[in-house]
């Protein structure tokens, strides 16, 4: 990769994406061979909001490469609560670590952090912005199950605040894909993402009803609709219920349909779906480690 940091999906070309996925496949094929690859390297984990899975998978990825991690710990016990700026925090961590993984509740946080440090910064989610390393593992899963070209992808749920959705939509424009976005009216894609999709000439359609497009889909990517997004509980129930998948809801789908979810799920996908060949979300979760190993390895490579 030419990049020093991984901040947003938009910075990655098709070649960049494929280079990461190819390396992840190499790692997956022979984990043992990569065990000492980054011995001596230290990864700084800066999570300003909780995310157990993302944190654990980066931690595991670094350790499987032979490196170590330093973790700033939960936010309420750090100097953040004492009013230290993010800019100061990352400059301090830069002194401890060879790369920094940052999760932060504000959009643009990783972009700003990257301007203050010389070590690679990986955006592990900035508010409702982007989550590009998640997208790389999503694409890895899609490639394994459906291939990355001539693809019809449906993305359903909270498209407005879903950062994984924003990164995925942008990265898919690198490939020959048709994208369908299925959401309640109030949770449609934000205009900045629609602007990018439009500017890249992507084939995009928006829907409120999954049934309209289900038979065409190769991949259905489901995200959670959060209660906090709705002023009133009844309104939330009414809406959320329409965007849940039970086994019957997939009746009209292709046999080869791949159903994905960034996890954790609450009730967007019924447990009965887990037993069908469509369910790939646990496989998707497992792919987090080899893909993040590949990513870390490549970003640290630029360092040498």
């Amino acid at each position, binding site marked *: 990769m030419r990049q020093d940091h991984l901040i947003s999906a938009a910075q990655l070309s098709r070649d960049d994406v494929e280079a990461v996925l190819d390396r992840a496949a190499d790692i997956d094929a022979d984990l043992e061979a990569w065990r000492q690859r980054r011995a001596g390297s230290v990864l700084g984990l800066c999570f300003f909001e909780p995310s157990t899975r993302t944190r654990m998978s980066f931690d595991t990825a670094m350790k499987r490469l032979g490196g170590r991690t330093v973790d700033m710990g939960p936010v309420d016990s750090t100097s953040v609560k004492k009013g230290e700026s993010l800019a100061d925090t990352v400059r301090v961590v830069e002194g401890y670590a060879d790369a920094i993984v940052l999760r932060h509740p504000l*959009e*643009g946080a990783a972009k*700003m952090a990257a301007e203050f440090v010389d070590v690679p910064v990986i955006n592990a989610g*900035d508010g409702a912005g982007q989550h590009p390393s998640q997208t790389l593992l999503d694409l890895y899963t899609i490639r394994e199950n459906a291939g990355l070209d001539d693809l019809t992808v449906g993305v359903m749920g909270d498209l407005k605040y879903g950062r994984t959705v924003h990164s995925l939509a942008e990265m898919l424009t690198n490939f020959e894909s048709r994208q369908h976005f299925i959401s309640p009216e109030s949770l449609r894609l934000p*205009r*900045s993402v629609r602007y990018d999709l439009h500017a890249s000439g992507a084939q995009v359609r928006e829907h409120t009803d999954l049934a309209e497009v289900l038979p065409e889909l190769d991949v259905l990517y489901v995200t959670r609709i959060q209660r906090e997004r709705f002023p009133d509980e009844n309104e939330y129930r009414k809406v959320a219920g329409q965007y849940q998948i039970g086994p019957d809801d997939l009746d009209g789908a292709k046999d080869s349909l791949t159903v994905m979810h960034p996890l954790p799920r609450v009730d967007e996908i019924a447990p009965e779906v887990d037993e069908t060949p469509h369910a790939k979300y646990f496989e998707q979760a497992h792919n987090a480690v080899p893909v993040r190993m590949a990513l870390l390895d490549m970003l640290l490579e630029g360092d040498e």
Partner: protein
Amino acid sequence: MSDTNKQLRVSKIRDGTVIDHLAAGQALNVLAILGIDGSGGEGVSIGMNVPSDRLARKDIVKVEGRELSQSEVDVLSVISPEATINIVRDYEVVEKKRVERPEEVTGVVSCPNRNCITNADEPVVSRFEVLSDGLRCGYCGDIVREGEVAENLDVS
């Protein structure tokens, strides 16, 4: 509209800047961009909704004893691409320039996304990429349409 007639509305200045051919209704926003609220003591003349050959109606702002910084000119170009800037010395226009749309503007505009890192207490200056019809935050990616720029001016 003859020149003499215009002068009835907006008097000549000795040294300073005349910002002409502003889109009608933008004069007060221009003052906001320049951070002029009268307290600095500059002499300021404003013409609003003046008939114009080039635009049906235009605004004019004349500021005594003040030249514009590049970032001020940059933002001007976004809210009013047709604007011209005349530098006046001793009652004569010594320099006349059209504004040019820059590739980016820094400072001056704040990001409308309240959840953007540039609105937090961080040592960072707002930066926007200039699009054909608006601005895009260089940090969070949010888009400010042309018509919304004025209400997001950071004139503190």
